[in-house]
């Protein structure tokens, strides 16, 4: 007998599971913005730069990715994450503590911090990557779920290589070229995990959210596979102390093709509204093309890193501005609340555009800082403000949800015939 509102909700985890990750991710984003005021960021191996990089990748990207995965998998892949709430909470705490200990370890290289970072991050990353990948393996693969699977495998490799590096820093001796280890860690992290994640998300949402022509089928089927196996081939070559830069170049080129494809799809979108999320996607794709150019021209590690960062952040902001207001509305509406706030009430389009211009302004400021140093500060301020605003949007969504839950009028769903 159909007698409650939870049927559809049974497939989705409670809203707090997702929002918890998103709020933490935004707080790490604010922390990253503040870290941008630190000295020595020009050297990408300085403790400050390493701390900043891992705050962005683990604190921000992994938090948002895990939150979105816990939410999206049931929809995207028909997967029900059992015990989503308890499991996600443990993963969440592990990720926060592990990231903090790792950041501390860059400044205070003590074994205890390496061990704590390894334990907490190891648990949260491996448990999530394995649990999600196992579920994804079981289902009929779509291009998006296949891409997600390769992104998760890449995250697994990234973390594994990262832990080898932690062990090496802690004094363990390996018969492995540390430089290659570092390059493989960074390649799997950026081009495997983050880029494949973005690619698989774009396969699903670009066509769906903006009503665009689909990506070519064979291309969508083989791109994640090709990128992943090229990265793996590179890793194998590294273990033989061989370094074929051509492979990495090919991977970067393939991702660049994807960004061009995505831009062309967005240009052909049938939905007339150019909301901020389209602008965020465009910013992301253009940033990657600039990353590609700066990489080819060898324009410097910091510049390339900034472009890659905005590639990832553009997509992240675009997704948050779609997911959070939808979830607030969806969860309340599904429980029968008449006054479930509409999406634009949770995240007003005007605010989304202001947030876009902040983030865009941060990118421009970082670029200008190559000529006038002071603009780095302006970029850091705008970057911090962008994440503060994102935090505010997510928090106010959560607040509105709780308010309606407490004060809203509810429709008795048992009346349904």
């Amino acid at each position, binding site marked *: 007998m159909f007698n409650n509102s939870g049927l*559809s909700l049974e*497939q989705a985890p409670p809203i707090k599971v997702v929002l918890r990750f998103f709020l933490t991710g935004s707080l790490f984003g604010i922390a990253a913005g503040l870290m941008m005021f630190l000295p020595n960021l020009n050297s990408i191996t300085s403790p400050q730069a390493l701390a900043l990089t891992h705050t962005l990748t683990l604190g921000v990207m992994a938090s948002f990715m895990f939150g979105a995965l816990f939410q999206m998998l049931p929809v995207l892949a028909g997967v029900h994450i059992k015990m989503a709430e308890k499991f996600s909470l443990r993963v969440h705490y592990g990720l926060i503590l592990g990231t903090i200990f790792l950041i501390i370890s860059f400044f205070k290289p003590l074994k205890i911090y390496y061990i704590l970072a390894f334990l907490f991050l190891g648990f949260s990353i491996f448990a999530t990557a394995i649990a999600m990948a196992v579920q994804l393996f079981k289902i009929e693969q779509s291009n998006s779920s296949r891409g997600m699977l390769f992104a998760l495998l890449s995250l697994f490799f990234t973390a594994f290589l990262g832990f080898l590096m932690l062990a090496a820093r802690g004094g363990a001796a390996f018969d492995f070229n540390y430089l290659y280890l570092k390059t493989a860690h960074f390649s799997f992290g950026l081009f495997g995990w983050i880029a494949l994640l973005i690619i698989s998300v774009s396969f699903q949402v670009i066509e*769906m*959210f903006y*009503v665009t022509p689909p990506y070519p089928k064979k291309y969508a089927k083989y791109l994640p596979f090709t990128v992943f196996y090229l990265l793996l081939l590179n890793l194998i070559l590294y273990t033989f102390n061989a370094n074929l830069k051509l492979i990495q170049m090919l991977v970067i080129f393939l991702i660049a093709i994807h960004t061009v494809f995505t831009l062309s799809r967005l240009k052909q979108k049938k*939905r*007339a509204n150019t909301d901020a999320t389209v602008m965020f996607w465009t910013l992301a794709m253009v940033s990657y093309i600039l990353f590609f150019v700066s990489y080819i021209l060898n324009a410097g590690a910091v510049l390339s890193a900034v472009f890659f960062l905005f590639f990832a952040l553009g997509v992240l902001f675009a997704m948050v501005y779609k997911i959070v207001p939808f979830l607030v509305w*969806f969860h309340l509406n599904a429980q029968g609340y008449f006054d479930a706030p509409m*999406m634009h009430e949770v995240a007003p389009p005007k605010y989304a555009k202001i947030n876009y211009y902040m983030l865009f302004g941060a990118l421009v400021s970082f670029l200008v800082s190559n000529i006038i140093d002071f603009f780095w500060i302006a970029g850091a301020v705008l970057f911090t403000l962008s994440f503060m605003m994102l935090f505010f949007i997510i928090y106010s969504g959560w607040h509105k949800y709780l308010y309606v839950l407490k004060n809203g009028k509810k429709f008795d769903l048992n009346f349904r015939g």
Partner: protein
Amino acid sequence: MHISQYLTKEHRDCDDIFAKAEAAAAKGDFKLTKEEFLKFADETLLHFKKEEEQFFPAFEEITGSSEGPTMVMRYEHDQVRGLLGKMAQAIESEDKDAYLSLAESMMILLQQHNMKEEQMLYAMADRVLNPQKKEELISKMEEVKL
């Protein structure tokens, strides 16, 4: 023809009409919005009826359960029907902001629903049903009227 081709095409057709209605609303042209929205609502409701009267029972026969995914799909259809009503109200009161905001929810609700149908239900039906059964089911769906 495969079930997935037939029903997925209806999803895409509805998306196209939806986009036209939304574009008209964004321009403040409520006459055109109403025209396109009514087409969208008719196409969507007809598609739901085809599924509920023909496809879901056939799917339930395959799985031997009427309380599995089809029950969730029927529930989501009801959510969409509710939103259609609210969107119609927004058109009547020529409230552009409300219409565009509801349209955003409708789009995501519909798309995540469509994804589940396309990736699970339609794909499974295509795998399990023989070609003759598929043809029969499609002709039965063709006969459904609003």
